[in-house]
């Protein structure tokens, strides 16, 4: 046995370098215990990740939860108080119902009202009630057929002719403007129907835009009304002027007659 050990040690002494390389190879091939390097950090990492997790839950999760809560409140407030869908539908329904009223009004004003019985008045009346600007050019003919024309110079004094011509002009102008105003009113009613349809298909955010257009139409309509009122006032002004002129002419006529009578009496 002792002899055997001596032999082995002898062999090892002779091959020390070879054995050293074999050990080196064994060392190189020995798997490394990597976990041995991080093992001390595991506890720190675990604690850190746990802290991060709880922080994410409390700080970010809590913050997002608060935001969600406020946004939910805003959403509910807007949907239930500011813009409830049922209220919007109700308003649209009312607009539709009012459109029905407008249709009735349109039908009322489309009822024929002509009343003249004789030829000339019927012709003039049909022009005046036509609500068609294309008929305005026919007004003077229809007018003169009923009310006559300005007297010839041998049939009236220049003053009277001026008065008659001016009065005829104002009367005809008023008739023509009445046709135009009727036509304008029809167009306004038509536009109002279209705007009303626009309201029925609008959203709460776009309804004010439609309203702005309606406001513009209202301003326009006020202007047309003022124009119509101005035409009416013109006719009344000329009417008043005629009354004054009649008094003037009556006064000068009376003086002339007085002089004529004196002349006749003196001759006799």
């Amino acid at each position, binding site marked *: 046995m002792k002899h055997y050990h001596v032999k082995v040690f002898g062999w090892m002494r002779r091959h020390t370098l070879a054995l050293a390389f074999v050990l080196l190879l064994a060392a190189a091939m020995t798997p490394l215990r990597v976990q041995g390097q991080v093992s001390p950090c595991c506890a720190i990492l675990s604690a850190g990740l746990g802290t991060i997790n709880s*922080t994410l839950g409390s700080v970010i999760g809590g913050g997002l939860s608060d*935001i969600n809560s406020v946004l939910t409140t805003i959403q509910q407030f807007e949907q239930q108080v500011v813009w409830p869908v049922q209220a919007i539908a109700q308003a649209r329904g009312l607009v539709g119902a009012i459109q029905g009223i407008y249709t009735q009004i349109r039908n009322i004003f489309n009822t024929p009202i002509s009343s003249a019985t004789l030829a000339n008045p019927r012709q003039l009346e049909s022009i005046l009630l036509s609500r068609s600007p294309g008929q305005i050019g026919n007004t003077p003919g229809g007018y003169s057929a009923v009310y006559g024309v300005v007297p010839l110079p041998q049939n009236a004094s220049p003053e009277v002719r001026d008065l008659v011509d001016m009065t005829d002009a104002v009367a005809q102008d008023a008739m023509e403007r009445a046709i135009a105003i*009727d036509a304008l009113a029809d167009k306004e*009613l038509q536009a109002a129907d279209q705007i009303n349809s626009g309201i029925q298909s609008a959203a709460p955010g776009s309804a004010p835009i439609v309203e702005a257009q309606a406001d513009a139409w209202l301003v326009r309509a*006020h202007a047309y009304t003022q124009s119509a009122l101005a035409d009416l006032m013109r006719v009344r002004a000329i009417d008043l002027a005629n009354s004054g002129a009649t008094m003037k002419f009556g006064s000068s006529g009376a003086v002339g007659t007085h002089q004529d009578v004196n002349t006749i009496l003196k001759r006799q």
Partner: protein
Amino acid sequence: MLAFTLLFAGLMLLSAHSRRRVVAISLVGCLAVLVVAPPPAQGQFCLPCVIQAVLDTINKVIGNWLNAVTGVLTNIRNFYQQVVWPINLINQAKAQIMAMIAQFRGLMQGIFSINPHTATLPNPVALENIIRNRQTGDLGSVGQIYLNTFRPVPQAGLMAPQDRDMTDMDDAMAQNNLKTLKMSDQAQDLMLQAADQIESLAGDPDINHMAPGSAPFLTASAVVASVKSEAIMQKMLAAALRQEAARVAHDNALRKRRSALAVQLQNDMTNILQRR
């Protein structure tokens, strides 16, 4: 690593007789120990520091921003609920509308429905009734009832042709206006209905029937109703204009005739005087 060190130490003892071998085995041993036990690298990476930095970022940066966002949203919510659309003021506005409806609507309807009837004879009573009944279904009867009171245009031969024309035109304008007024009366009633409907819905206390967000529909509808109303006003003014024009034209036609008659009278007088 300890095992490798002991083994290499044994080999060095076995080769102690040769210095060169000892040196060679030492070098190989050192190499093996280095392979087995590389220097730890954790000195370059501070894990607690990194974790703390992440926690600081979460707490201080993200947390603060989330708090700021929550603050802004809370302000917006409070602004909406307390300043822009406070429910108490919405209800107060509706209550005011309903109170005004109760205060004025019936009263004004009562005043508006006052409809004087003062004619005493049958024909004028009938005409007064028909021109004030605010209906349009009987428009066709206006002409005959009018003629019953004001009589028809005289037959040809009983009146000068121009006078017949003018009389017929006067009657036509008068009847047209009476009919237009009946139409506008009914249109006014319908417009009043529209106004009542708009006001009633505006004051509806149910938030599902009337809300601030649905008010623009009613506002727009009311403006459209105003346009319609203005158009009706224009039609009435046009009718008044026609009537005034016809009246002025009638007076002017008489003036023309008076002028012609005056000239004729003057000529006749001159002839008479010249004969004497």
